[in-house]
């Protein structure tokens, strides 16, 4: 097992808009250690979302190298990427992204369905995961019957259930009131304390301050806390 869960070196991402080439990332080098809690901050248009998509294997890089948990994911096709997403990454979205027709535990078991886990084990692990986020009494509720904070906790349970190497949270509190925000941030702190590797993408200082390390993205480049351009060396 590699010490670095995320290992980006000289990663570039260029979007092609007709004949116009739009660079979104212009050589990002970033390492995240196992068990680390990193916040990625940046204004809109900075390349923050692109970075998040690349970290989550939702998008491919134009050049450079990306090792996720020691595996080079630059060369993988869509079919192989889906396996990586399924087994290495747990997503937490701003919009929660729960399926409204499914009960809480059915939502949580989804990643395990695609991993080919047996039905009995899926249900057991989904319920364990929901208990872990304090929703053991609401396993049969549908998203519509839960508050925003509770829905985000279901999403956290879903991110945890596959035991991924990396938990990637994209503005996890962007749609929550202050009470629920504190609630979800406390939960993420707990996960970090339990040894999880967490990357949070946010523009709120309140959220970023909880992390061990803050990485700033500006104009497609990454700067560390001190405002120094991150180089090949670890920050």
């Amino acid at each position, binding site marked *: 097992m590699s010490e670095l869960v995320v290992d980006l070196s000289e990663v570039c991402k260029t979007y092609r808009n007709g004949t116009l080439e739009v660079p979104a990332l212009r050589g990002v080098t970033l390492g995240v250690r196992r068990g680390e809690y990193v916040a990625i901050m940046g204004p809109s248009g900075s390349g923050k979302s692109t970075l998040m998509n690349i970290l989550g294997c*939702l*998008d491919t890089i134009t050049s450079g190298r990306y090792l996720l948990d020691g595996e080079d994911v630059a060369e993988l096709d869509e079919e192989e990427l889906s*396996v990586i997403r*399924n087994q290495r990454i747990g997503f937490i979205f701003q919009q929660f*992204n729960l399926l409204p027709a499914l009960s809480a535990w059915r939502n949580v078991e989804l990643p395990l369905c*695609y991993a080919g886990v047996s039905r009995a084990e899926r249900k057991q692990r989904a319920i364990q995961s929901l208990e872990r986020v304090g929703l053991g009494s609401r396993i049969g509720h549908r998203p519509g019957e839960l508050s925003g904070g509770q829905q985000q906790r279901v999403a956290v349970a*879903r991110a945890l259930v596959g035991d991924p190497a990396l938990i990637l949270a994209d503005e996890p509190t962007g749609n929550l009131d202050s009470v629920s925000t504190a609630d979800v941030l406390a939960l993420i702190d707990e996960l970090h304390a339990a040894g999880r590797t967490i990357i949070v993408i946010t523009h709120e200082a309140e959220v970023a301050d909880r992390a061990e390390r803050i990485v700033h993205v500006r104009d497609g480049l990454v700067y560390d806390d001190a405002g120094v351009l991150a180089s090949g060396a670890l920050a």
Partner: protein
Amino acid sequence: MKVWETLAVAAGAVRLNRVRSLLTVLGIMIGIASVSLTVGLGQGAQNQVREQINALGSNLLIVSPGSSTSGGVRGGFGSATTLARADAEALADPSVAPSIGAVAPVATMQQVITYGEQTWTSSVVAATPDWQTVRSRTLAGGRFLTDADLADLGKVVVLGSSTAEELLGGRNPVGAEVQINATTFTVIGVLGASGSSSSATSDDDVVIMPWTTASTTVGTSATTLSSIYLQATDSGALSAAYQQADSALLTLHGISSSDDADFTITSQESIVEAATATDRTLTVLLGGIAGISLLVGGIGVMNIMLVSVSERIREIGLRKALGAAPRLIRRQFLMEAGILGLAGGILGLGIAALGAWLLPKLISQPVTMSLWASAGALVVAVGIGLIAGVYPATRAARLAPIDALRRE
């Protein structure tokens, strides 16, 4: 993810939008129902004709006078008087026509029959004892004509079942005395029902009497015939019997070319074919028109599947982010379309079954719904659903997860 799990997800999506799913499958439902009913009606009509014709007898050839095209003028079917009793006697000779087993020359005439106060007009058939064998008829009671009846000019008749019913009501006809053309006849037997009682020219409304008696008492011709029924020795000998009868009659009538023949030989098979060919053409035509509604139904399914894909872009993106491979997404939407097709097919067959039960009561036309045709209809319905699903499912599978997730 196992196939049946994907199937459950797809079925869940169909169930979630019940009203829309029902409206979506309406086209396929109507298409399957109309195709099944059209084919069923066509089959029913063909079976009916086949039954009526088979009721004529087995391995049967019918020689009719006329229908010649002498001098380019085609005589009316059965209008000529060119068939003679001598022809029938010649065909009965095994050395002339070895493949012909039995010969039944027939002359018919409409006559009024009286029993007491009761009168009834029926078709008097001047026949020979072989008539019963050749026409494959059974007796419900009494006996049939014998050679002795012919030789003695016996004043005896055998009644068809509906003739007996009309004249005598419930009474036992055997032994009863009826008047035809001022002559008294004794009823010696009653024919069993032929099985095609629904046909207009009922085989059950007949009075059979010895031809010898008929020519002297009721006025049927002693020499010319309405038709000659021939029975081949077995079903394999039917075409040989046809050839032999044709050449024998041409020789007897002194005609050199069969184009000038003054008689027509028809087989059951040719009658069945002629009678069902138009039915079949009509069935294919109507079925084709009904098939167009299936096509329209398929387009409807494709349309709604496309709507469904764009509606569920976030769901697709999420499933992909959680690790669903493109082929799983494609499978999910294909199955959804297949389920819609199947549902349309089942509903359509249900309506067709209802129609098959109701239509015969309304228009007195039999509808035959075969198991195979129904199974075929279901396969077609599922197939149409799947074909209609290919494009939407492929679009869903190709969606980039980021684009899908970003959509508000």
